[in-house]
């Protein structure tokens, strides 16, 4: 997580609190370009531009709220918790997949318009909302639940700290689809399992309490499975939780190899 935070871009705007001063939160004027699509009105996609005055502490999600609540109520996007936990508001902001609720405006280049698009590779339903079904189909297929049919213990299933640490990184996934929809292989036809499904398979494959690791490896040893990963690292860069996704995929590849040889 520390590595990931180090890679975040430096703030373009210095806030008073950071420079040691105090007082009112500064404001700045920004331009937001949003990709609009409404199949009930037109099959054509167009871009809308909005001029806003925002606070220095605001996020892209606040800008979208301001547009929806004060300027154009027809703007559609998903958001649930608005605090980077639910994974509803993954979108392409300035060409990069991020969570709108975790992207501070001051970290973006405000000299240019901020572009906001839906994530790629999944069919757009309206504005920033995409159909997540192909994504969740792949997720369901890796059986993302504990499988253990041995005698049920009276207390919790014991797991040492080392065993827990083995898959700690991949437990952080919030299923926002930022990784899968940043993957060029997934863009082709949506058939590749995608980074998110493999990450969630990894979480159970390397769980010492789980018994179906072999089965999940078998599922991912598919024509559309882990072997389609080209290690472009797009997923690792896109992940808002800082999961080392490409590494997790490589570990699954290795596990399949070791099991087969």
């Amino acid at each position, binding site marked *: 997580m520390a590595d990931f935070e180090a890679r975040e871009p430096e703030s373009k705007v210095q806030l008073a609190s950071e420079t040691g001063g105090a007082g009112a939160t500064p404001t700045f004027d920004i331009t937001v370009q949003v990709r609009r699509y409404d199949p009930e009105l037109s099959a054509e996609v167009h871009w809308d531009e909005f001029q806003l005055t925002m606070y220095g502490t605001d996020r892209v999600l606040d800008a979208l709220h301001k547009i929806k609540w004060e300027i154009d109520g027809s703007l559609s996007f998903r958001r649930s918790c608005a605090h980077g936990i639910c994974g509803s508001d993954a979108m392409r902001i300035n060409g990069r997949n991020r969570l709108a609720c975790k992207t501070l405006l001051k970290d973006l280049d405000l000299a240019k318009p901020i572009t906001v698009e839906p994530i790629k*590779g*999944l*069919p*757009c339903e309206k504005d920033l909302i995409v*159909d997540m*079904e*192909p994504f969740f*189909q*792949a997720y369901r*297929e890796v*059986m993302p639940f504990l*499988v253990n*049919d041995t005698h049920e213990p009276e207390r919790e299933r014991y797991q040492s700290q080392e065993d827990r640490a083995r898959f700690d990184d991949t437990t952080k996934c919030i299923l926002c689809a930022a990784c899968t929809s940043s993957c*060029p*292989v997934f863009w*082709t*036809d*949506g*058939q590749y399992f995608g980074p998110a499904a493999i990450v969630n398979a990894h979480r159970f494959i390397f769980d010492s309490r789980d*018994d*179906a690791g*072999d*089965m999940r490896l*078998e*599922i991912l*040893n*598919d*024509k*559309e*499975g882990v*072997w*389609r990963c*080209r290690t472009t690292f797009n997923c690792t860069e896109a992940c808002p939780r800082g999961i080392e996704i490409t590494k997790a995929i490589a570990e699954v*590849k290795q596990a*399949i*190899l070791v099991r*087969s040889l």
Partner: protein
Amino acid sequence: MATPLKTKISVPRSRDHSISGVKYNRSSSKRNNFEMAAWLYMRISGVLLVVLIFGHLFVNLMMGEGVHRIDFGFVGGKLANPFWQVWDLLLLWLAMLHGTNGMRVIIDDYAEKDGVRFILKVALFLASAFVILLGTLVIFTFDPCPAGADPELLASFCAAP
């Protein structure tokens, strides 16, 4: 294993439910180790090819008088030697299969329509098979001492006519 693997439902690709190029039917592919073998082959052949290619370049271009000594006699002499026959055969097969698999992967990644994908792959496999077979034929049937050729051009071991 208590939970059985999901049964494979084979939906013909032509009947796929598809929206904006994204297919909604999954899992029509067969499970076997081909993709794993292909992935492993790319890594192993890559390492071998580095040795074979640089060995080839060193012997042909650096040793002795270097590039100036390459003529019909030099190539004829090399292809008459079983060591270089095996070397060149390995180079040919490993490189062609490595390249063909690389192209296959690129077609899989970038061709969006199944028809286009199929045609491109057939063309690729035919071209590779042709080159591999022709190359193999040349390596094993090459005559370093063709009858009636100028003896000046031939390898030293060719008997004078």
